[in-house]
């Protein structure tokens, strides 16, 4: 067994050890988020949407994430014991898809009140612009080893990512090519602008006209 395989094997074992806690953290965070956003859900207009998705990060994905954090995408055999999946912030993750943008902001504000100590690390595009709020932290009563994460994503962007990530995961060289990165950035930018503009159109249409006054 190579050094890389030994480290990977130990991390897989750690994953199995953590899995019951990951599931508990996910259940806790998902339930809290559903509860806190219930008033928003019940006040949605027919064209507005709020969808909550929860997922446990899969073992191989977790190991790969940790490996991808290293320069050269390789574990250092001289510090093999230092690597731990506990360093990952997203073993238990909740994604909230919201449409339009005004609902995203509302949900973000509501959840910030209830997860005050969680750290912010927004999803960014290649230019460093924020696309979606994202937070991670502990729910200490449930686990002091596994962090939870939630992100609030503009719905059109989130649905695009679901399709795009699944397809591109299988074809990483293509996904990382200059052309595909450019196309992805174009789509993200277009969807992001659409959602922002739609929200401002709706806000404008809600303003009473001079004839109404």
């Amino acid at each position, binding site marked *: 067994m190579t*050094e*890389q395989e030994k480290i990977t094997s130990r991390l897989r074992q750690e994953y199995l050890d953590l899995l019951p806690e990951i599931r508990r953290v996910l259940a806790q965070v998902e339930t809290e988020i559903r509860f806190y956003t219930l008033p928003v859900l019940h006040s949605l207009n027919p064209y507005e949407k709020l969808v909550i998705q929860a997922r446990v990060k899969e073992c191989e994905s977790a190991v790969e994430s940790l490996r991808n954090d290293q*320069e*050269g*995408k*390789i574990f*250092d*055999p*001289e*510090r093999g014991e230092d690597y731990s999946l506990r360093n990952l912030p997203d073993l238990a993750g909740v994604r909230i898809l919201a449409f339009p943008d005004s609902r995203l902001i509302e949900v973000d504000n509501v959840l910030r009140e209830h997860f005050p100590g969680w750290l912010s690390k927004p999803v960014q595009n290649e230019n460093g612009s924020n696309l979606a709020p994202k937070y991670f932290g502990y729910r200490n009563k449930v686990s002091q080893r596994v962090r939870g994460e939630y992100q609030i994503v503009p719905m059109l962007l989130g649905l695009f990512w679901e399709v795009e990530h699944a397809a591109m995961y299988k074809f*990483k*060289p293509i996904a*990382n090519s*200059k052309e595909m990165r450019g196309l992805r950035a174009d789509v993200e930018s277009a969807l992001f602008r659409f959602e922002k503009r739609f929200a401002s159109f709706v806000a404008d249409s809600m303003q009473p006209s001079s004839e109404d006054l």
Partner: protein
Amino acid sequence: MKKEILREAKYRFNFDRTLYVNQAAKKAFSLEFVEDHSEEELATRIKEGASDSGWIFYFNNAPSDGVKRELEKVLGA
């Protein structure tokens, strides 16, 4: 453009390791190093002479001997 500089110097991107690699010169730059250093710095490093004793890796955080060994195995002697 950094990518142009690397391409002209015959560095190819290794997607698995996210390294720019020149097999003939036995030199490799990590993506992080390329992103965090200027074009001038990059050009200077590219011009540096190759080592007689093996690969040279340009990383933000100097790789340990263990990492160098592992990468050398992957990239070829």
